[in-house]
């Protein structure tokens, strides 16, 4: 046992040294965990934020002007006024996502109780914005009209009042969400590529054989690759969380970062094992490159980090339970967004560990067989 651990340790140190010997790779890793995270968190918006809206005011009344002025930051950019013929080209070019048409005599008809119609054109190809934005537009319009009618008293006439608060993130800002989710995605990509390609390189250079004539087992070789590459990525992850996410971006995370890192370590075990498994499937580096794209793209885009898991078809949700990334995303959200502790997150840890163990076992079996045939 002690011997085995000793072997694993020493082989892993060797692995780290070869990582260290490739400066281009190190620079890319640094980019992945700093600049890339920063850019995405700083510049991408999932919420309705500064959405571009155009107003076609054919009424030119007091009310229509009031409506035009009601679209305010942070949700909307100040509305641009355009003529009716510019609606379609503007939407086509993507200049704005919403176009609100206020028909002639709108105010007059409204006061006469004729329930006049407004028209809202939405570029629904901007999926993340279209649905929520349309709701906002409706709410703003409703509020303004009610206020206008009640002479400025926007009193809700409902028999009860609903006060909505967002727990864990009062302003529903997406900066933290995007930073952490991008981090989990980058961990996945790097873990698969680094470990899998390290194995193929040893195979293509023939050094793996040399290891195997020594009293070293395939199990130990695999474990060494897993811990060494996992540790390198874990260090990069910590750096990213403390230095980029917290210090530079100024994003506050709720829970315990060490707990998240421990969860990441478990996740890295699963994903590096997956990397080795993929490497045993691919015959050469070019094949490996093409094989890992669909794997990590699916693991990232369908894990719930990009779009909500609940909105996928049920069968696909079930399939995605087999991906460790799905559970890791939940784990990261629970710890870093909601401040959950071990008592709550063990149910995400368990599947990651289970899937990891299965992947490891399959990878180990294939790796042993691949070596026997080489």
């Amino acid at each position, binding site marked *: 046992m002690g011997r085995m651990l000793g072997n694993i340790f020493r082989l892993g140190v060797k692995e780290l040294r070869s990582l260290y010997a490739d400066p281009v790779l190190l620079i890319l890793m640094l980019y992945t965990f700093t600049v890339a995270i920063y850019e995405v968190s700083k510049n991408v918006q999932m*919420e309705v934020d500064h959405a571009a809206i155009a107003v076609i005011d054919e009424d030119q009344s007091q009310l229509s002007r009031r409506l035009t002025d009601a679209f305010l930051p942070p949700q909307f950019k100040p509305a641009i006024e355009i003529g009716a013929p510019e609606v379609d080209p503007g939407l086509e070019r993507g200049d704005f996502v919403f176009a609100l048409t206020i028909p002639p005599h709108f105010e007059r008809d*409204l006061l006469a109780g004729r329930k006049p*119609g407004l028209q809202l054109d939405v570029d629904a190809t901007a999926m993340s914005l279209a649905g929520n934005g349309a709701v906002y537009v409706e709410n703003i319009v409703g509020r303004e009209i009610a206020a206008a009618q009640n002479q400025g008293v926007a009193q809700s006439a*409902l028999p009860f009042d609903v006060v909505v608060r967002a727990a864990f993130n009062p302003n529903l800002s997406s900066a933290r969400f995007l930073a952490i989710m991008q981090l989990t995605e980058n961990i996945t990509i790097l873990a698969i590529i680094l470990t899998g390609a390290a194995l193929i390189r040893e195979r293509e250079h023939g050094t793996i054989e040399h290891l195997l004539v020594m009293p070293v087992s395939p199990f130990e070789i695999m474990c060494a690759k897993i811990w060494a590459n996992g540790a390198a990525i874990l260090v990069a992850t910590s750096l990213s969380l403390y230095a980029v996410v917290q210090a530079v971006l100024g994003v506050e995370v709720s829970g315990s970062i060490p707990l998240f890192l421990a969860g990441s370590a478990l996740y890295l075990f699963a994903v590096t094992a997956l990397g080795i498994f993929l490497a045993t499937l691919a015959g050469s580096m070019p094949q490996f*490159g093409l094989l890992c794209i669909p794997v990590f793209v699916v693991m990232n885009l369908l894990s719930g980090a990009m779009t909500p898991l609940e909105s996928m078809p049920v069968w696909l949700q079930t399939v995605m339970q087999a991906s460790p990334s799905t559970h890791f995303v939940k784990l990261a959200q629970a710890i870093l967004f909601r401040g959950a502790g071990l008592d709550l997150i063990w149910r995400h840890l368990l599947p990651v560990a289970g899937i990891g163990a299965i992947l490891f076992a399959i990878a180990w079996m294939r790796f042993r067989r691949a070596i026997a045939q080489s």
Partner: protein
Amino acid sequence: MNDPQAGGAVGTGEIVAELRGVSHRYNKTTALNRVDLAIPAGCMAGLIGPDAAGKSTLLGLVAGTKRLQAGQVRVLGGDIADEAHRRRCYARIAFMPQGLGRNLYPTLTVAENLHFFGQLYGQERAERQTRIDELLKATGLARFPDRPVGKLSGGMKQKLGLCCALIHDPDLLILDEPTTGIDPLSRRQFWDLIDRIRARRSGMSVLVATAYMEEAERFDWLAAMSEGSVIASGAAAEIEAMTGADNLEASFIQLLPPEKRAGHEPVVLPPRMGEDGPPAIEATNLTCRFGDFTAVDRVSFQIRRGEIFGFLGSNGCGKTTTMKMLTGLLPASEGEARIFGRELDASDLQTRRHVGYMSQSFSLYSELTVRQNLSLHAHLFHLPRKEIAPRIAEMLDRFDLAEVADALPAALPLGVRQRLSLAVALIHRPDLLILDEPTSGVDPVARDEFWRYLIELSRHEGVTIFISTHFMHEAERCDRISLMHAGKVLAVGAPAELAAKRGGGTLDDAFVAYLQEVVQDEVQPPSDTAAVPAGNDHAMAAAARPFSLRRLWAFAQRELTEIQRDPIRLAFALLGPIFLLITFGFGISFDVERLPFAVYDGDRTPESRELVESLSGSRYFVEQPPMASAAELERRLKSGGVSLAIEIPPGFGRDVWRGSQPEIAVWLDGATPFRAETARGYLEGLMVQHGQELARRQGVDPGALLPADIEIRLPFNPSFESVYAITPGVIMLLLAMIPAMMTALGVVREKEIGSIANFHATPVSRLEYLVGKQAPYVAIALASFLIQWLLAALVFGIEVTGSAGALLVGALCYVTATTAFGLLVSTFVRTQIAAIFATSIIIIIPTVNFSGFMTPVSSLEQSGRIFGLSFPSAYFQQVSLGTFVKGLGWGELWFNHLILIGFACAYLAVAILLLKKQEA
């Protein structure tokens, strides 16, 4: 001795290449140190010397494949540093780099390889065919034009390499160690072939580097090199006369500087003491098959304890495979092997402790220092902790490594590295040492020293040594040897005994005689009537042309053939996108539904229950078990089990009827902002509906609440389904990632494998090379795009509403840009790992986040927009989305096409700048 005119006496008296004050360095290592040398024309000129002597560097400089750093090199009457002259020279020089078939393409057939080289020199198909037929006849390869090069033996590979080099009738043929690693018979045939070719093309100059002194004896002129300097030049006889030695090897040792020669004396093999006990190795009918190929065919032999047993044979004859079976690396397909009387079991780690192995390629870990290498192995073999430090010290001392203990192996001469390898293999005091070609490329002095270590181990410590080698001198020092060919053992016995059995000549002659018996039917004797084509001038004119479509096509066709031979890669490239498109079409959706919510109902009246039902009845929300306390509410939110928690205060039902407007508190899980925002929209809508319903029952006119209707129109996506918005974006993503991944390994892989040598040594330009490599992938990517287009229509019913032409041309421009990006990555990374990683990470971030796929470009912040616009994806997203769902055509989109073309050109231009035609 270094007089440039020393060789003037041989050949025609003319000089083919002249070096003046040439120095060359690799980082800190000096490869050539102020070399002055004149190489005579029209004869066979040789460079001899150990591996790190600078022979390969000198050849590379003469061939123009390496950039000249200092000094002057004149080749074929011009300055090689002059680009115009160098370009003319590509057509007059042929360069065969070191390594068996290293510049050949293993998956291509013999004929395809030859056609490829012919095309590079601008030959028409008919002309190529004539030349290829003649060359194949002359080399005896005529029977195998359709055999993949990877399946040729080492000797045949070298003959083919020679054919490829001769296809354009060079005036100067440069061969870098052409016979290292091939069997004596093939070696002889190879030199005979060169002689015949020279007889027909008398003007041709040949420059050869070799480590075999016995071969060098037949050269017309020689230059002996050591440590970056020429230590002697002239005819072999002159050099021998100069040193007074009777053969070249001895002369060479004499010529070495005294400190290198110190302590050198002939190697003596003392007789072996008889030892009892079971043999160290006993192999019975060992067989190893890979598929239908039998690598080792019923091999049997016994090696006695303390014996030095030599294994001779060409590359690929099964030596290495046999050794691997004996180390337990490979399971035997049939037969039995016993090590010290114990049956070999691959899973038995115990036997491995008795065996030390030094593999052919090995392969010290270049990232570890000498001491770290020793320490790693000591630990892996689990020497007792206390013994490790003294044992390392002992090995450093014994193998004279103490001075370099903290250096990295890469910085050490080959001879020292080999001593280190031996030290590493011996660190755990094995009883049996298996050495696979340990002395390849090592100079004679270091080789003798190495043998003294082996003899000492065998005679004084009783270590059994099983060694494979190409050198007959070394074979003669073994107690017994075995001759192997094509997986079979031809003969076993003491070297003198074997030589005697086959006519009493040298061991080399004996081996050739044994080989000839078995290979007669294998290689057809070359026909003497075959004429080797005579030179022509139009090849030179063609090569001097700066751009040639034919050369570009040669690379494109070769790349395409390689893809054809690797159907798995093609399948990944075409099936991957299909899989992803379907998965994402179904999977990526911004429709938020089935949000789990739970209620902390402090009221429990029909009113409160009704309110809850108004939510749970909609498709947006799914009710979870209710919560009993405020603490539970917090915990459930924290655990992520609910996205929405509703707290209904006590007395809610009563207060509603009283008109005192009770307050319901709703908590959203803000962890996922997008989902929370959507949930808030739905919730507020449902609450308003329910409130109106309630108000109506109370007799209040709800009409006043929403006095105007808002009609929402969704012009591009009337049913508001994610799939319409997502599919064009997924196509954009896939056309970036997969084509770029295919080209990203192109250049860096050729560098790792060695076929990049053809780019350095032939007239192909950087543009031709890169575009040639790119073109087939553009075609594959376009085919993949058409499949995706079809799938979008068939599976998701997404038809192109705009201009199909604009879409198709846009896709072509886009994949040209993304494949060019892959090539760019390939030229700046150092390893294939970095290439894969760079392609993945550099592409996925802008395509997913900043190209308008997930978030519209109009709501990106300034720097994010710049980030997005600096990658081609943002522009193709406009084309894809515009033509698929927005009904746009050329009029609105042409500018995007122009920008995409601009990206393709820019990437290619940078890749050309980064790619160097000459090596450093």
